[in-house]
């Protein structure tokens, strides 16, 4: 049976209310199209994990589908705030938002632990910080059994489903990513299930570039969505739309402009392109 399905089938078949999802991609290859399909299908009560929530989680939070976020830097890169995220945390609009918060290094460590099947990751960091003081449920301290050094222990992250956008998949479902690879490998390997949207389905994967390879037996479903990372980008296929990231500031700040944008750019479309 082919794993290559429509975007509607990919999300409807695997994403359910109340799940814990990671839509990863460190600035590069952010799976916007998959996120927009979740918005169209109105899947509620989600816990969303991403190092940088970015515009895609601002949108999912703004439409009221998110119960909790797990993150390490929640801004609009180089621009400023994510206003839907801020409104949810500061004012409970459109609904209160729980959060779990890390530093980048600690969150990468938590994904690595998850991918390695370990209960926690070890980090030299967090000493003296208030993030550690405020969040003892997932940041604790251990003594190194060899040197006695006090190190931070970060609870592992294991999403129910990780969704990533990749440059290529072959017909069997093997996936290839190159350029900035962020934590996609760790997020994918830590998850119970992996879904992928791709720029291109090819007969044979490009071997020119070094990068991440995810074998077909770890991938539950694939959809071809050219431009599916827009306004983020896919190296070799598109460029980051910095102009849109700047214009999001005004859209996100104003609830009526935000709702109109969601209506025209997400709800009234069947698939991003």
């Amino acid at each position, binding site marked *: 049976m082919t794993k290559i399905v429509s975007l509607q089938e990919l999300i409807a078949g695997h994403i359910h209310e109340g799940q814990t999802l990671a839509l990863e991609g*460190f600035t590069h290859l952010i799976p916007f199209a998959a996120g927009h399909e979740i918005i169209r299908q109105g899947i509620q009560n989600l816990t969303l994990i991403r190092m940088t929530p970015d515009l895609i989680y601002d949108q999912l939070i703004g439409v009221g589908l998110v119960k909790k976020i797990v993150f390490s830097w929640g*801004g609009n890169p*180089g621009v400023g705030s994510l206003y839907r995220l801020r409104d949810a945390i500061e004012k409970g609009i459109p609904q209160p938002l729980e959060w779990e918060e890390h*530093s980048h290094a600690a969150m990468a460590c938590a994904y690595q632990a998850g991918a390695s099947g370990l209960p926690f990751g070890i980090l030299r*960091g967090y000493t003296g910080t208030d993030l550690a003081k405020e969040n003892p449920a997932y940041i604790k301290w251990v003594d190194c059994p060899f040197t006695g050094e006090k190190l931070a222990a970060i609870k592992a992250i294991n999403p129910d489903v990780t969704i990533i956008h990749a440059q290529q998949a072959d017909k069997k479902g093997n996936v290839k990513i190159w*350029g*900035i690879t962020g934590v996609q490998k760790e997020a994918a390997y830590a998850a119970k299930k992996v879904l992928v949207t791709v720029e291109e389905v090819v007969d044979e994967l490009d071997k020119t570039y070094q990068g991440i390879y995810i074998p077909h037996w770890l991938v539950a479903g694939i959809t071809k969505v050219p431009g599916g990372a827009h306004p983020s980008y896919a190296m070799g296929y598109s460029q*980051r739309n910095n102009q849109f990231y700047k214009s999001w500031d005004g859209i996100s700040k104003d609830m009526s402009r935000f709702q109109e944008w969601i209506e025209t750019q997400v709800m009234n479309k069947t698939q991003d392109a």
Partner: protein
Amino acid sequence: MDYTKDEMMIITASQMLGNGEVCFVGIGLPSTACNLARITHAPDIVLIYESGTIDTKPEVLPLSIGDDILAATASSVVSVPEIFSYWLQAGKVDIGFLGGAQIDKYGNINSTVIGSYKNPKVRLPGAGGAPEIAANAKKTYVIMRQTKRAFVDQVDFITSVGYLRGGDERRKSGISGEGPQVIITDLGILEPHAISKEFMLTSIHPGVTLEEIRDNTQWNLKISPDLKTTKAPPKAYLEALRGLQNRTELAHSQTMP
């Protein structure tokens, strides 16, 4: 040649970076200062961004930490876990260059919240890579515009450690890097006292008054007995900086298909 306060700050910061140093670069002002150093006196400076791009040489400034231009001009691109573990945590970074929303007299930085953590008045973006840069880079430099709101006696939230409550508290708590060596602002240069680690004014930019500096600092800022006047920015640096910013603005205003 006339210049702005921001130009004074960025050029002063860039001149502190040595050729060949390995710098872990924050986005915004740090990225501007580091790239200016690279295109002027420090062509062999190694710039590392937390997106995993190593030895990157962008011809325009990136808007985000993961812009395509950083990957396209890097010697190598590694994963996020690798950049933080093998590079930063393992002590391979000379200078961590940071900005922030709020800083206190001991160089602790807040980029998390204004108000209480659980019920914040203003929710700021959060930590990103800063806590481990502040802890694990051999040294850190900080660049921030000096305002009363930003330069406070004690930060609302310690996102990234400076000298904690001063003296040798940082060293005693086992943090590996030496900590913030300097805060470069649009008004002057602040450096920590050798014993107390309280930041004091060691250099004032040309045309700035002590009164203006005190008005923009919440704590009772001490003035170094050897207070200097910062050298005005050289013409070559001003031209290089303006060229870089013009190229950047042009690149970021283009609408992609």
